[in-house]
């Protein structure tokens, strides 16, 4: 083969690749996201009353207006509270090196990937009527806020801490030398520099709490209802699809507005950053040891207590300690799940692997577009891909249910569940990979070119291996997200193919000590699996980049 024809073929392949890189994520989003959303919109507009009647009903009913107001203010309160409470931990993990640091950092992430349902149950066990603390905060806003802080703690530690670790400590030192006190230096130098990360963390937390479902469902007792819970209630309890659809559309509009604001803000942040060496060092003075020790103790107590309570409850079925809850998971005869709970574990892992693969392919292609394209294409892509993050899981599940029934009824297809999961995981993949792609210095690619590598070869030799690591991190996240997903699965699950969170939900709804113990046992197993995938993430993390 002559060089010429090889080159021509390479150019053709390159052109095709360029088209596919944009087309695959776009096609995927159109089919799995925009189409279901469109179906919801149609359902909302074509109710029995017709036209805009369902929207009128949403705005007209005081109880629904109350739901909207509650959704908004609890999200704002949760966001502010989480940022304030988790800030010291972000600082300690970013700036100090101490024994067990990476293990603890990984452990802090576990609540974030836990199923919201499990978080709700854990807080019920802690603050409920027969709670371990002896105070009943259930059906108060405090239980919900605390659970939200617990759940989103890691977002602040990872996002803010990630940037904090790369801030040059000499900047603060310079401020100190110029006469600024500790607090003053923090306020005038550190805080402004951290602002992009704080904004990123806040917007993520706001979105999650704005669309909070599992936590509110368990702890709010339907007295407190977010829009998300209301959609579920209107669909499942009242079969009022038009109102549910109208709520979904309004929620999506609100979320899009928030995301648009966020993306505008992020654009100002786009700077090519070097992978600076981590700035963490051993604490030296007594004061520093106290700071580290105190913060870690608080973190361990705050995050550890609900989790340990889960394990403890799973081991206390009837009198004293026993493993009955675990051994009975494989028991089919006495199951209230139609299938042995062990099958739910297998289902979850299977769905997780498929969801992970879809999310990786689509997410990495999309990240390539965002990281390498300039101008509006990149910005719109970024925004479009963030939308599923802001779209509630319930809306996605609801949308699939409405969209995939005709012309071909796909609702019984087991493929729908991993599809929904991957849709939720894609924004995480994108957010993990894009910063790494953007941080790869152009010089490295140029160095490879000068040494004789073609543009494609340079990409394969330099970009790909560096991205592969963050790809593994993203894969771990996608898998963990799929394992714990509840909202969308609740709409799509077939009785004979439950996932772990669904099995836990069903077990919690059954009377009896054993069923409660088994729910806790299953939660514990889910927690261990999640923790394992997060540990894998930590091993492959290169530096501390990425936003999650």
């Amino acid at each position, binding site marked *: 083969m002559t060089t010429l024809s090889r080159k021509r073929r390479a150019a053709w392949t390159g052109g095709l690749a360029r088209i596919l890189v944009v087309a695959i994520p776009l096609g995927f989003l159109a089919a799995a996201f925009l189409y279901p959303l469109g179906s919801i919109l149609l359902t909302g507009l074509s109710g029995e009353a017709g036209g805009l009647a369902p929207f009128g009903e949403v705005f007209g009913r005081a109880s629904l207006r109350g739901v909207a107001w509650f959704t908004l203010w609890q999200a704002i309160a949760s966001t502010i509270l989480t940022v304030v409470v988790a800030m010291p931990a972000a600082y300690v993990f970013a700036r100090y090196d101490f024994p067990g640091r990476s293990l603890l950092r990984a452990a802090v992430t576990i609540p974030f990937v836990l199923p919201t349902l499990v978080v709700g149950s854990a807080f019920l066990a802690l603050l409920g009527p027969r709670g371990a603390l002896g105070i009943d905060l259930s059906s108060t806003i405090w239980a919900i806020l605390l659970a939200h802080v617990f759940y989103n703690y890691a977002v602040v530690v990872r996002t803010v801490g990630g940037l904090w670790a790369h801030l040059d400590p000499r900047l603060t030192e310079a401020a100190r030398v110029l006469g600024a006190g500790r607090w003053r230096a923090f306020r005038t130098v550190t805080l402004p520099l951290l602002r992009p990360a704080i904004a990123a963390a806040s917007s993520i937390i706001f979105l999650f709490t704005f669309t909070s479902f599992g936590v509110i469902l368990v702890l709010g007792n339907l007295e407190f209802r977010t829009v998300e819970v209301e959609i579920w209630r209107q669909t499942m309890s009242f079969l009022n699809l038009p109102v549910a659809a109208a709520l979904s559309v309004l929620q999506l509009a609100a979320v899009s507005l928030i995301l648009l604001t966020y993306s505008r803000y992020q654009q100002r942040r786009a700077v090519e950053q070097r992978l600076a060496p981590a700035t963490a060092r051993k604490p030296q003075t007594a004061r520093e040891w106290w700071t580290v020790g105190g913060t870690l103790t608080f973190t361990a107590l705050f995050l550890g207590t609900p989790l340990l309570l889960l394990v403890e409850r799973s081991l206390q079925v009837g009198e004293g300690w026993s493993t009955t809850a675990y051994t009975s998971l494989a028991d089919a005869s006495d199951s209230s799940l139609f299938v042995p709970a062990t099958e739910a574990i297998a289902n979850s892992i299977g769905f997780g692997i498929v969801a992970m693969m879809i999310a990786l392919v689509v997410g990495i292609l999309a990240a390539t577009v965002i990281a390498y394209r300039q101008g509006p294409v990149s910005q719109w892509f970024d925004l479009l891909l963030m939308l599923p993050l802001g779209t509630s899981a319930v809306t996605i599940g609801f949308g699939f249910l409405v969209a995939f029934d005709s012309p071909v009824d796909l609702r019984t297809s087991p493929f729908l569940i991993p599809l929904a999961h991957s849709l939720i995981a894609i924004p995480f993949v994108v957010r993990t990979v894009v910063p790494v792609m953007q941080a790869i210095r152009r010089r490295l690619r*140029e*160095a490879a*070119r*000068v*040494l*004789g*590598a*073609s543009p494609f070869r340079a990409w394969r030799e330099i970009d790909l*291996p*560096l991205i592969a690591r963050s790809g593994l991190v993203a894969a771990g996240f996608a898998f963990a997200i799929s394992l714990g997903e509840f909202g969308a699965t609740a709409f799509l699950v077939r009785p004979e193919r439950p996932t772990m969170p669904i099995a836990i939900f069903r077990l919690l709804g059954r009377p009896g000590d054993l069923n409660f113990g088994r729910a806790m046992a299953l939660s514990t197993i889910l927690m261990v699996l999640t923790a394992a995938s997060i540990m894998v993430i930590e091993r492959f993390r290169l530096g501390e980049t990425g936003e999650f």
Partner: protein
Amino acid sequence: MLLVERVTVEILGTAILSDVDIEVQDGEVLAVLGPSGSGKTTLLRTIAGLQPPTRGTLRWDGEDLARVPVENRGFGLMFQDYALFPHQSIGANVAFGLRMQRRPVAEIDARVSEVLDWVGLPAYADRRITNLSGGEQQRVALARALAPAPRLLMLDEPLGSLDRILRERLIVELRQLLVDHSITAVYVTHDQEEAFTIADRLLVLRDGTVAQEGTPESVYRQPVDEWTARFLGFRNIVRADVTEGTARTSWGSFPTQHERPGSFTLVIPPDAIELDPNGAVRGIVDSRVFRGGHHVLGVSVTGETILDVEIVGPPPEIGAEIKLRVTNAVVL
């Protein structure tokens, strides 16, 4: 042989290089000396093919390089910040160019250890590039650029970020290495001493144009204009009227080898001024700086001009009136 003919590079409408002509003979080391912003890095990027010229041509042995992409030029470029691949070992970094040439594995291994040996890092191949010191990174980057035996090696301020002592040692080693292996090289720097040490031929770049070209000695001995003289480190520059081997200046009169009479700018090398009780130049010591081997005096003559004088012996006090003799002056 590299030939750069009337090359102009404009980036975002600003001319970074204007009508630059350069010739590099085989086996020759050309140093490009210029202050930051003079277009040195752009020049290297243009030769490498990373930056297309707006006008002008680049030729290697007569072949026009315009249609030759970066990877097929067979040039080596050592980046200012080294640009080592963070995910590869030292050996893999050095082997990169050889792998691109599809050389057999055994040959690559042999060449990698050979080149690492040249730069004084034997048995380093399996180490990671993280945690290397600045000097070690510099050596790895050099080895990586050398390994594929480029027809032209370009070095962009390779010693820029290293400390002075290391720099002075490495520049001598580098010169030796380039000479030993008769490597054709373009060496870019803003440091005159570095340029003088490394170069067979020197080119001074100013605002994207070639200000002067020649051997290091000739450029030092006869700077082309006042700007170049100041950039090369000369501080004593004065207007003079020359007649019959004597230069008359506001400082006084002194001999010059220049024959032609007229009005000129004079440069007095630092080693051409000495304390002399019978000297023709009278001045008052304004300042005195100890520089280790010598003192540098700031001397005001006729109340205005400051003359920099290097004194090896015991220096006069500040405020003292002294007499100086100028033994030589270069006419620009």
